[in-house]
């Protein structure tokens, strides 16, 4: 009998991860396109503030890299969803795989894309400022260079946010794979909630709370712990839920 090869999970996960990096390069080309779009979008200021006070009005255009980070967040969310679709999952099972290795390699891959996404988002923001610096006429302030330690901070934080969105996308994607009609239900719930929230006058409380929970956490360590815990939880649940899912039908 031909020798049966003994196989260890980490090896397969590693191989699958490298396969995915090579196979899903199109994910990165869409990242590139998204970030270029974000640069165009942020030319008219990523935050505007207009105010008038005894005798004159001021319009302030804040040029920041926020938009490129936000669009990268959306890109990460969508990439995670796309990875869970049937075509990609079946690709996983062409060669050697089982659900655990498929999930793990997906998670490692998503972290990989999050690192690339987060870093390029921040750098794109910086390069956007450099470009604006050359064109800005109406009185700019504060040079483009942010202190080195803040740059590192920005890189870490943006990677973490991108990873969080990837985890959320993966969770949503898996739910949709489990129950087809979720793909209709989930958006309606979210949008409906927002609309009702908006009409009630106050912001949609739950979403604001969630936003506050992460975005208003000023202690970096706590922030990292929160993100990592949430992502692990989301990934863990989605892996458990889909462990019995059939493939290559």
């Amino acid at each position: 009998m031909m020798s049966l090869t003994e196989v260890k999970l980490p090896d397969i996960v590693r191989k699958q991860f490298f396969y995915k990096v090579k196979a899903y390069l199109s994910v990165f080309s869409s990242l590139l396109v998204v970030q270029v779009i974000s640069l165009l979008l942020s030319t008219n200021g990523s935050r505007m503030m207009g105010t008038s006070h005894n005798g004159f009005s001021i319009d302030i255009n804040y040029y920041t890299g926020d938009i490129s980070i936000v669009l990268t967040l959306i890109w990460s969310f969508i990439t995670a969803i796309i990875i869970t679709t049937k075509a990609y999952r079946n690709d996983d099972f062409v060669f050697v795989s089982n659900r655990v290795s498929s999930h793990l390699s997906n998670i490692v891959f998503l972290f990989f894309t999050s690192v690339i996404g987060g870093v390029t988002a921040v750098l794109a923001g910086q390069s956007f400022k450099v470009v604006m610096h050359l064109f800005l006429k109406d009185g700019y302030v504060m040079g483009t260079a942010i202190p080195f330690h803040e740059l590192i901070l920005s890189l870490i934080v943006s990677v973490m946010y991108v990873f969080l969105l990837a985890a959320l996308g993966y969770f949503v994607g898996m739910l949709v794979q489990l129950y087809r009609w979720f793909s209709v239900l989930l958006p309606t719930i979210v949008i409906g909630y927002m609309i009702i929230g908006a009409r009630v006058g106050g912001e949609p409380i739950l979403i604001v709370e969630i936003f506050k929970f992460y975005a208003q956490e000023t202690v970096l360590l706590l922030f990292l712990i929160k993100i990592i815990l949430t992502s692990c939880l989301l990934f863990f649940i989605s892996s458990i839920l889909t462990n019995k899912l059939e493939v290559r039908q």
Partner: protein
Amino acid sequence: MIVAAFFPLVLLLILIVLIYSISKNIGKIPILQKLKIKWALVIYGAILLLALLFSYLIPAGDSSVYPAVSETERNEAEKAGELLVKAAYDRKNIRKENIEDVEINDQSTIPFEGEQLEISVEETYGPLTVLVERKLENDQKIEYIEYHTKTIIENLDLTDEIDPLSVSIEGELLRVMNGGFKDIRIGMFDKEFTISQFTSDNGVELFDDSHHVWGEHVLFLRIPKGVEVIDKYEYVHYVKE
């Protein structure tokens, strides 16, 4: 009003759909397949790094138009504003008080022979306190001094941009009006929310203009003895003797 609330939501949805369609069929665009994606990404990475290096090379540009102000100066300006308003509220004689960081924006005297003076404050777009001091004798002259504190937006000192008030007398009417209406546009670089979350005290604020200091204005009038002041809308406070 509700429509405005939808705008960010609708924009978000459009963006999501846009990015979804890009991600979905980026693979199908033939030219992108030919073009070695690997090379495109490497070039993109190189550009980003170059830009980063370049951003450290450009001189830390401060405003070419407005003087930059440090955090402490801004706090002092804010404190000065509070003191000025308090002094006016307490009807102190500001001329003698010389509160720190309170400057005179404009000062002049207008001849006036009448017995009655009506004061009207028009179009000032903002809080203005009028303080009147009775002169001991009637030298037929009305003196006015406009005190104000610094206006600092972000960390730009825009005080000089604020035109002084226009004070004029027609017959027995003293009219106080704003200077010309001015519109200022400023372009500013700011730190991403990923930084401001940890550098500001309460994380990411969606709409915060906490770090603006608006200058306070007090108009100090010295009216000759015997002139009766008509103040229909009670603009005026009198200096306590």
